[in-house]
C-alpha cells in the first residue's frame, strides 16, 4: 500500500494571498504534486477547527491552511486567529495519537508563486512520509 500511497490533502487558501499565489504558480508554469486540492475562502480567519477535523474525519491524509504573511492579512488578523485554531487541532491530534504534522499552517504573499509550489511539494512529501491517515484506513475497512 505504502509503495503506491498518494496522500490526499486539502488546502484552505485565502482569496487575497495564498489562492492568488497558487494562480501565479500556474501562470509561471511551476509543477507541483497534484495531491493537494484547494478550497478558497475569503480569509483564512473563516476556517474553523471543525473544517479541519471534518476533513480528517472524511479521510484526508493532510489538511493545511495557507494565508497571508503574518501582519499582512487583508482582514487585519484573520491569519493569526486561524493559526491558533491550527495549533488547537494539532493538539487534538496529538492527544488522540495521530501525528500533528498532518495539519499545517503556511503564510505567503500573492507574489510568491514559487513558494506556493514549494509548500505544495513540502506538504505532500511530509504527509507521504507519515503514510496514510489511520482514519482513512479505518474508513476503507468499513467500506470493504
Amino acid at each position, binding site marked *: 500500500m505504502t509503495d503506491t500511497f498518494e496522500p490526499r490533502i486539502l488546502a484552505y487558501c485565502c482569496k487575497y494571498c495564498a489562492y492568488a499565489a497558487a494562480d501565479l504558480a*500556474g501562470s509561471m508554469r511551476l509543477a507541483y504534486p*497534484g495531491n493537494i486540492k*484547494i478550497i478558497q475562502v475569503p480569509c483564512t480567519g*473563516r476556517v*474553523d477547527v471543525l473544517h479541519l477535523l471534518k476533513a480528517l474525519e472524511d479521510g484526508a491524509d493532510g489538511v493545511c491552511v495557507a494565508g497571508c504573511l503574518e501582519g*499582512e492579512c487583508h*482582514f*487585519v488578523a484573520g491569519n493569526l486567529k486561524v493559526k491558533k485554531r491550527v495549533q488547537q487541532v494539532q493538539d487534538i491530534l496529538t492527544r488522540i495519537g495521530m501525528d500533528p504534522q498532518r495539519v499545517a499552517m503556511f503564510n505567503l504573499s500573492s*507574489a510568491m508563486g*514559487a513558494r506556493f509550489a514549494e509548500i505544495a511539494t513540502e506538504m505532500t512529501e511530509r504527509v507521504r512520509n507519515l503514510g496514510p491517515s489511520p482514519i482513512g484506513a479505518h474508513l476503507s475497512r468499513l467500506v470493504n
Partner: protein
Amino acid sequence: MSQVSHMDKQRAIGAVMVVGGGIAGIQASLDLAEAGFLVHLVERKSAIGGVMAQLDKTFPTNDCSMCIISPKLVEAGRHLNIELHTLTEIEAVSGAAGCFQVQLLEHPRFIDPQKCTACGECAKVCPVELPNTFDQGLQNRRAAFKLYPQGMPSAYAIQKMDPAPCRLACPAGLNVQGYVQMVKQGKYQEALRIIMEELPLPGVLGRICPHGCEDACRRSQVDQPVAIRDLKRLAADRFDPRQIKIACLPPREEKVAIIGAGPAGLSAAYHLARSGVRSVIYEALPKPGGMLRVGIPDHRLPPEILDREIAVITGLGVEILCNTPLGPELTVDDLLEKGYRAVYLAMGAHKGIPLGIPGEKAQGVLQGVDFLREVNLTEKAQVGRKVAIIGGGNVAVDVARSAVRLGAAEVTIIYRRTRREMPAWEEEIQAAEQEEVRIIYLAAPQEVLVTDGRVTGLRLIRMELSAPDASGRRRPIPVPGTEYDVDIDQVIPAIGQQPDLAALGEVAGIQFSRWGTVETDGVTYATSREGVFAGGDLQSGPWIAIGAIDAGREAAESILRYLDGRDLVAGREPKAAGEPIHRPISRREPRRPRVHMPELAEEKRRTGFQEVALGIDTESGRLEAERCLNCGGCSECFQCVEACIAKAVQHDMPPMWKTIAVGAVILAPGFETFNPAPHAPYSYAAHPNVVTSLEFERLLSASGPFQGHLVRPSDHREPDKIAWLQCVGSRDINQCDHEYCSSVCCMYAAKQTVIAKEHSTKPLDTAVFYMDLRTFGKEFDRYCRRAEAEHGVRFIRSRVHTVEPAADGDLRLRYVLESGEIVEEVFDMVVLSVGLTPVADAARLAERLGIELNRHGFVRSGDLEPVGTSREGIFVCGAFQEPKDIPQAVMEASAAAADAGHLLSAARGSLARVRELPPEKDFAGEPPRIGVFVCNCGINIGGSADVPSVRDYASSLPHVVHVEDNLFTCSQDNQDRMKQVLAEKNINRVVVASCSPRTHEPLFQETIREAGLNPYLFEMANIRDQNTWVHMHNPAMATAKAKDLVRMAVAKAAHIEPLHQVTLGIEPAVLVVGGGIAGMEAALGVADQGYQAYLVERSGELGGVALKLSRTWQGAAVGPYVADLVRRVQGHPRVRLFLHTEAVDFSGILGNFRTELITGKERLTSVTAKHGAVILATGGGERRPTEYHYGDHPDILTHLELDAVMEQDPERVRKAGTVAFIQCVGSRTAERPYCSRVCCTYTLQSALAIKERNSETAVFVFYRDIRSYGFRETLYTEARRAGVLFIRYDEALPPEMALTEDRRMVLTGRDHILNRTVMLQPDLLVLASAILPNENRELFELFKVPVNSDGFLVEAHAKLRPVDFASEGIFMAGLAHYPKSIDETIAQARAAVARAMTLLAKDGIRAGGVVAHVRDPDQCACCLVCVRSCPYGVPKVREGRAVIEAAECHGCGICAAECPAKVITLQHFTDEQLLAKSHALFQDPVRSIAAGD
C-alpha cells in the same frame, strides 16, 4: 477651487479622462466612476499598474505591493464606468473646462484584448526575446508578451518596432529577422515560407546574394554581422522548397508573356502565378535561369539547386520556352496579338563591355560574360595557359576561378585600383588567392599585344589613386612612363555588362536611356508602350539578383493592376522614412563569434566545379541565428497567429486616432527613475553588480527574475554585503540638474535593507550612505530606528566619492565621513537609490495639454490649489506634480477626483452606464438543477486534461442536468449560448470549470445574472491556473484532478443559495468634525458637490491652527485664504455650521448615521444630524516645549510665536543680531518617535525671512537631519546661499541652553564638521517644537476610530486607503492624521470629500452578499466573542442578541469561525457549503484508483 465660469453648467460633460494608469490614476478613476462619472483611463503601456506593480514590498508596513494593488487592478479593469485605453497617448486637447475634446492615439496592440484569453500560447511560440522591461531588463521576455501576470487588461500584446535594418536593406524587402528566428528554432519549413513570400529562389540567393542585409546588421556594433545568407541557405538545404505549399488565388483567364527566364522574369512569373495570372516565359538560351545560370560558375551555384528552385515556379503552372529569343520571329507585337494581355521584358544584360584598347579583336580575347556562359552551358571552355582577366568585380573573380578549374597554368587579375576598392566580395577574393590566382593592383591594360592575330601579351600601365574628389572617391590615374608588358595568351575583359538591345530595336513605343537600358516608370516599371513592362538588368543596368527579384515582383503587381484596370501607382509611392526606432543594444550583450562556413578542401577544388561552400550544420545555424538582436521587436514570423486558437492576433492592426469628449482631465502619468548610466563615478554602466533601486525591487520580488532569491546579477551568488547610495539623481546639481529631493528614497532604501536581510539565507551586512535621513512620513522614523537597532542596518552619514570595480565582481567604495575621514570599504553589490524624474516626454505632454511646468520639469501647481494646473479643468496628482510616496499620490488622486467632481457636479450620472437586468428568477423550494460548463481554454486546458472525459464525468454527479465543453467558455458567443441553455433547461445553479475565479468569476456572475439567475448561484472550478498549467506534462493527473475539482464545485453548488443585496437609502449629507482648514475644505467640498454638510467646531472660531500661520512654504498668504474659507462656509446654503458644538452620541449604519450634537456653553441645545458619512478633521497643534528654558525667557519662541512676532513687531526681529533655531524639539525622541514633517521647511522659510529683513543677522540652525523634501530643498539651498549656518547635533547630544545671571542666553553645541564646540549668545531662540494631534479621546471613542501610539488617527491602509478608516463611511483629514503642510492638508480634505462622494453619489448602499449573518439570534448567548474577534468592530449586542449590520460587514468570516454556538455564518461560505466541498473531495463515488494516478 475654480468654478466652471465661461460655460453653461448644464452643458458640462459627465466624463473625465485620467491620464496614467499607475496607482494614482487608478484611484482617481475608481473614485470618479463610483461617484457617477464615466472615466476614460489612458495608459501608455499595455497594462495598468505603473511602478507600484513592480515593487516588491511597500513601506512602512512591508506589505506585498502586488497583493495590495492587484484587487485595485481588477476593480478598475472590470468597472462598468472605467474604459481602459492602453498603449494610448494624448495628441491634443481642445475646448475648455467642462467640455474638452481630447485627441488620442492608440498604438496597435496586435492582439485583440476582447478575444485574448491570456493563455500565453503566443508567447510560447514567439521566437523573439526582448528585455523584460517590467523586470528592468534583468531577464528577457518574448515579443508577444503580457506586461506581468496580474496586469489588466488581462491580454497579451506584441511589441513591434520599426522593421529591422536587414529587412530595410534588402532590395526585395525579405523579412530577414523572421526567417532568422525560424532557423534559430530549427523551423526550416516556416523559414522558407517567410522567405518565399517574396523570393522563390531561397537556395540560390542563399548562395550568391551579396547580402546588403548583413552590411546593415546592427550586430556589427557588438562584434560581426549575423551570417544571414548562410542561414537562408541552411533553411533551403534542410527543407526542399518544392515542398512548400504556396497559396495561389484561383486561376484567371488572362495570360502574360515574359521575356527572359532570369531572376526578374522568374520572380514576375512566380508572383503573377500566386495572384492567379498564368504566364509563359520566352528564353533565348537553352536553359532557364538567366545570369544565375550562365553568369555564375557552378562552384558557387550548383545547377541542380537552380533547377530545383525553378521547379518551384514551374510547379505553379508557369511555362518556360527555351531557345525562343525575341527577334524578328517573335516580336512584342506578335505576343500582344497572340492574346497575351501584357508583356514583361526581362532579358537582362548579357553583353560584355569592351576595353576599348588596341588589339581587342585578336584571337584569344573573350568577354568575361561570354566565357562564363560557355563554361556554364557546356562545362568547358577554351582557356589559355596564361590568362589575364581585366576587372575587379565578382565576374572577374568568377572567370579567374573558373579558368583555374579549367586548367589554366597562370591566372592573373588586373585591377586598376587597390584591394580596398575592389568590388568583388572579400571572401571570393580570398578564395581566388587560395586557388593561386594572382592579382595585380593599380594597373590598367593599354594594349593587347598580338602576334599573328593571336594574343601574346598585354601592355599595362601603372596607376595611382587621386586625392578623394568631392564625392570621396579616389580616381585611378595612369602614371606616365610606367608601361610594362606581360606575357599572356588569353585576355578576358570583365569590366561590365550591358543589355543587348538588338531584339528590342524594332519595338514601337519603347524608349531607351543613354546607358542603353529600357526607360520605365520608377514605381510601376511600365514602359511607354501600353501593356509592356520591363525590369531587371535590362532596365536597371547590371545589378544584383535580389534587385531583379524585387523588380519582378513589382512588375507582377503592376501587371495585375493593369489587368484589373486599377491605378498602377496608388499606394506604392516611396514613403519618406524617419529615423527608424530599433531595439536598443544592451550594454550587457555578450560578444559571440560569427559562424564559419565550411569549405571544400583546396585540393579538390581545382579538379572540377564542385561547390566550394558546403553549408553550415543545424547546430551552427541555431547558434548563429541566436546572435540576431531582433532589432525590429516582433519578427513577424506569424507563429503566434497559428498558435492562437482564439484568433486574437492581428498583425495588421493599425494605429487608431480617436477623439473623446470629457469635462475634465486628471494627469497622473507618474515618473521615471533617474538613469545613472551616463555618470561614470557610480560604475553603473560598467558593472552588473551596481543596480538601481528599482532593479533591486525586481531582484527581491518573488515574481522577479530570481524568484526572490537574493543573488547578484554577475554570478548569481548570494551577497554578504550590500551598500545603498542615497541621493543618486536627487539633491544634485553637479552630476545632474535635479536640485530637488525625491522624498521617497531614504524610506525605500531603509525598507530594502530590511527586506534584503529577510531574503538572505545568511547574515547580510547592509549599509546606507546618506546625507540627511529623510524619513518624515507616518511611522517612518520608527521603521528606521528598528532597522538600525533590531536589524543592524548601518546608516552612514557620508559622501561617497567613487564606486570602483574590485576583484571577484565586488565593488570598492571610497567615502568621506562627516569628520573628513576617508574610508574605503568593499561590497558585493551596490544599490543606487535613484531619484524620481519627470516622465520622458513631460514637456511634450505639457505642451499638448496647454499646461505649465515648473523649473524642475514637473507640473506647476499652487499650495492652495494642490491638484490644480495652469489650465482650468485639468488637474494633476501623483509624482507628475512632485516626487512623492504612494499614500500622498493616492490622496491627491482622490483630491483631483473631488475637484473634477465639483467642476462637473451638474453632469454627474449623465454618462454613467447602468446595466439593464431582467428580474431575478425565484427558484425557492426547487431542487438544484446544475449546469456544468467545462472550458478547453484553447489548448490550455484541453491540451493537458481530457476535457470530454471531465465533461462526461460531470454529468454523473448529483443534480447535474446539463454538461458541455467549450473552446472558450468566456467568449462572447459562448456567454450568449450559456444564457440560452440556462433558460431552456431551467438551470438554477451554474458551475464553470475553467480558469481562476479571481479573474473570471465576476464575468460569469454577470452572465448568469443577465439570464435572470442570482449571481451567487455560481461556483467555479479552477482547472487551468491550478491544474493544467501545473500538470501540463501529466495528462492523467490533470484529468483526475480536474474531475476532483469539478466534483467539489458541484457539491458546493448543490448547497448555494441566492443572496440578495438590500439597497438602503442614503442620507445625502456629511458630518464634518473640526473647523480648521481641513474641516472647512471638506465641508465646502461636500456642499459644492451638491450635498448637505454639517460642520461642527467645538470652539467659537473657525480656522484652527491656520489662524496663526502667515504664509505657505511657497509664499501664499494664509490669512486671506482662511478668511475666504470662513466667508464661504458661513454663506454656503448647504453648509450648516455648529460652533461651540460637540458630538455626544453617534449611531446608525453606513449611509444612515445619526449624530447628536450639543451646542452652547451655559445653555445647551441639542440637535440630531442625519448623515451618510463622517469626516473627522479634528486637527492638531504645536506642542508647548519643556526643553531649552522655554517659558523662562521672552526671547525663546516657538515657530508660531516667531510668526506672530514677525507680523506684529518686525523691528524686534530685524534688530536681533543672532537668531538660533533648534530643530526636533520634542519630535523624533524616545517619547515621540515621529518626525513632525513641517518644521524643517518652516525653519528654512523663517531663516530666509530673517535674512531678508536684515542680511547682517547671524542665523544658526541646530538640526539632526534637514528634511526639506521635494521642491522644499530649494529653500535649503537658498538658506545656505544666504549664509544661514547649519550645525548638526546627535539625538544623544543636543545643544545646551543656559541663561546667565544677566538673563542672556548661551547656547552651546558641537560642530561635527569642524569637530569643535560652538558657543552662541542668540538674541532670539526659536524652537521647532513637535506637532501634536488635538486631544479628542472621547470623540474618537464615540466614532470608534483607532489612534496610534502617538495619538494620530489610523487609516484603513497606510498605502492605499490613506483617508479612510477601516469602518466604512468615516474619513479623516488634516493634522489629526499626521503633521502636514497646508497644501497636503487641503489635498487630504478634498480626498476625503471624494471618498465620501463614492458613497453619497449612489442611489443606495448595497448591503449583503458575502457577509456574516446571525442566522439564529435566539440561540445567541451574548458571549461577545464575535464583538471581540471582529477586526472592524461590526458586531454589536443589542437586546440580548448579536447584531451584524450587512452594510458594515467586510465579509472575512472570522466571527463565524469563532462563534461557539455557530449562530453566525458567513454567507456563500457557510459550514454546510465548505464541508460539502471538502466531503466531496474525499468521498468520490466514482473513484476507483488512488489520487495522483
